[in-house]
């Protein structure tokens, strides 16, 4: 698992992953597989969350108190670890989605700012 500093995107993707997971959990408690499936389906197969990123993120969020976990029965009656959002998690979600919105609209503004490269040639 590469350290955050070494990713070229500067942690952008990790931040987005957290946000996606938290948003997913607003639908209710889910186990890790369920979260990955949900994101994959809802994004029309575009976003595929790797287990190598998902589980460390889930555990990190659990240690930080953003999500809480509980062992329960899965759909097919197997023992699985379910994650749910905590109040702190909801606050984090709001903050992260806020930041993300601002970021993406800023990017959109730049991209929609007229034809041609900049500075003008």
């Amino acid at each position, binding site marked *: 698992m590469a350290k955050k500093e070494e990713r070229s995107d500067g942690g952008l993707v990790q931040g987005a992953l957290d946000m996606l997971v938290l948003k997913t959990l607003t639908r209710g408690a889910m186990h890790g597989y369920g979260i990955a499936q949900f994101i994959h389906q809802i994004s029309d197969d575009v976003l595929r969350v790797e*287990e190598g990123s998902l589980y*460390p993120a889930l555990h990190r969020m*659990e240690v930080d*108190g953003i999500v809480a976990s509980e062992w329960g029965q899965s759909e097919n009656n197997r023992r699985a670890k379910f994650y749910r959002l905590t109040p702190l998690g909801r606050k984090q979600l709001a903050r992260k989605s806020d930041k993300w919105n601002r970021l993406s609209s800023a990017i959109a503004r730049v991209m929609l700012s007229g034809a041609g490269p900049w500075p003008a040639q």
Partner: protein
Amino acid sequence: MIFWNRFRAKLKALVRRRQLDRDLAEELQFHLDMRTQAGTPEARRQFGNVTAIKEACRDRWILTSLELWLQDARYSARTLRLNPAFAATAIAVLALGIGVNATVFTLVNAVIFKNQPFAESDKVLYITSTEPARGGDYPGFSYPDFLGYRAQSKAFESLAAFELNGANYSDREGFAEHYRALLISANGFASIGQTPIIGRDFLPSDEAPGAAAVVIVSCRVWDARYGHSPAVVGKTVRINGAPTVIIGVMGPEMRFPGDIDIWRPLVPTPDFANRGNRFLTLFGKLADGESLSSAQAEFSTIAWRLAREYPQSNKGFGAVVRSFNQFAVRDKIHSMFLAMLGAVAFVLLIACANAANLMLGRAVGRAREISIRVAIGAGRWRVIRQLLMESVMLASAAGALGWFIAIAGARMFARAIENTGPPPWLSFSVDYRVFAYVCALSMASGILFGLAPAMRLSRLDVNAALKDGGRSAGTGLRGSLLSGFLVTVEMALAVVLLASAGVMIRGFLATAAQPIGVDTRGIAVVDVGLPSSRYAAPREQAAFFGSLRKQAAALPGARAATLASSAPGMGSMNYLYQLEGAKPVEQRDIPRVDGIVVGGQYFDVLRTGILRGRDFTEADGGVPTVIVNQLCAAKLWPGENPLGERLRLGHSTRGQAVDLAAQPWLTVVGVAPNILQAGAGMEPLIYRYYRQEPQWSMVTMVSAAVPAETLGNGMRRALQSVDAEVPAARVDTLDGWIDQNRWPLRVFGTLFATFAAIALALASIGLYAVMAQTVTRRRHEIGLRLAVGAGKSGILRLVFAKGLRQLAIGLAIGLPFAYALSRVLPRLIDIPAQDIAGILLGAAIALSAAGILGCIVPALRAIRVDPAITLRHE
């Protein structure tokens, strides 16, 4: 918020490590199974490296710093366990160092820090007066001054006063006893917040002039005389012959201010009104918001005011406010204990240097291990930290041992001074302060002795160490320089300590073993104090002691008996004198001389004889005579024959003025040899005859033809036959009594000798360890030399030269410091500085002997090296 969550979660994970791992495995397995179920055969491959994912997840739960510490700790423990010899030696050496330090700290703690065993006793301060122009002892306050201070002072909740006394106590329940009594103002106990456990406290009416005599007794008296019976309140006893009613009993811990048996109210008598009578010590509990310095400032101001209002009596007098420890323990003792603290600090430093050297010696073996660790990525700091942890572990184990050494040491010390009458508030208990001290000391010494080896080891040339298997690591110039430096430091410290100990011991010997000038063997003594009520008249006092002396002389086995106000070596009184024909002088400038009051045949009993003239006899009862000793004769009538000369003597009691003109002229009838009475040396002394100056307390001395101890009972019976109601304060032999007075020599002398011995042993071990390492390291070279033809003596010279060189450098550095210290110490401790050169020489020789001893075994081992074996092992 997140920080706390993290901390809590990681702490929990610390405890439930295995459960965590199981859950993680199960969680990932679930995901994997679901994936497989969903179809794709490469499910597992796509899943990725399960182990890596597990690691990543587990990492989130780890308290990294704690993990690292635990890891280091386990590693250190294992390393030490695998090297029991080294560990045991290091622990032993350090335990000695920490142990003696803890012991001395316990003593210092008891003497200098601890306070009296009642609530808020640290807020109770004691005030005495002082005459800065004259210096010396602190006199007390007069009664009017006390009232003045009490009215004007706001620093204390309530100001009280006491005077130390002695009292003869008798009732029907037991033998007459002489108790330590305190005259205390009625608000005394209230001001320190103490009340009797049965009965009542003093009331202001108890200290009104003419009030009925009352007394509060201590728990000890209550137990000893009255068997804890509650009926004691209201009982009438006789104190100094006067009927007194017991009104209360104080609690078990209460001996205020120190070893007091009974307390009586401070009832003013007419002579109290005199402002020149200074006999009261003031005390009180600080009011809220006040401190020692604010109280001192206030009292100095009041003193100045009083000096202005009453210049006759109070001019030049000030007030000194002190805490209990400052008040009760003389400065000299303070310095003594601090000197001990310094000495053991040296011992600890030597022990640390020793341990550091031992650690360095292991560098040879550890070079490989450390270079591997560094090679795979351990930071230098991590290595240092782990090595320090080893040394701290060793030091902690040593600290635990040292704790027990302290307990044993404190007990031994307490037993040693048991019979010398230490104050009861002195309890050498090993309490939490000592515990904290031991912990701090262990920590500090662990880091201290571990630091140098750790820094040295962590800076290894990794390449070189790995290449040749670590054989040459630690042998670098740097390594042996450090090692040599440590040994040199050890030697220097040791010689300073030895010299200081020598100075202390010599000083004690000089003061305590002062030749008294008398053969004190074979003399039995009984010390008696008369109750002032029944022996108020001086004539009666003289008659009593006259009879006692006669009875004592008549004892079977007694050769002769005499009296003395103080036995030889036990102190003296002070007289103002005026020689015949001398000019009259101001009150304050009247010359003084020490003296004692003796009975007839005094110099006969002491077997010194009289040098000129004659001894006192019964005939001197009516004639005003005096005997002087040689020093006195030389001082008062230099170069002349003192026999027949006349002088006048007077006492100043309680600071009162004395009118010498009213005293009779005394004629010198004899010159006696110099006998030590008080102080650190012989002084001029005057001897008066007891019938001319009767005393209420005298020692009866009997020169015995039989062993002196056997006369004890006879003396008691003689006393009883003269007056059954008078108790003997002491029955002993003169030898035994004087010996007991010399306890500082025995106790402190032994202590310092012990420290010196430990330092020698440590220095010897230190040199031995270093030499042994050297020999081991250079075995190869030695084998080579032997093979090439060097004789055994050559090898011996090689080893000894190295060792002695370090010894010499150590001495060279240490001796100047030792010299400086031995000039300063005696002044601090107030003991004579004698023979410093001899002491330094002795210290150097002792250390050299210890050093040579340390070199012998390694040297012998060196010459037994078999070149064939060592060369083959290349």
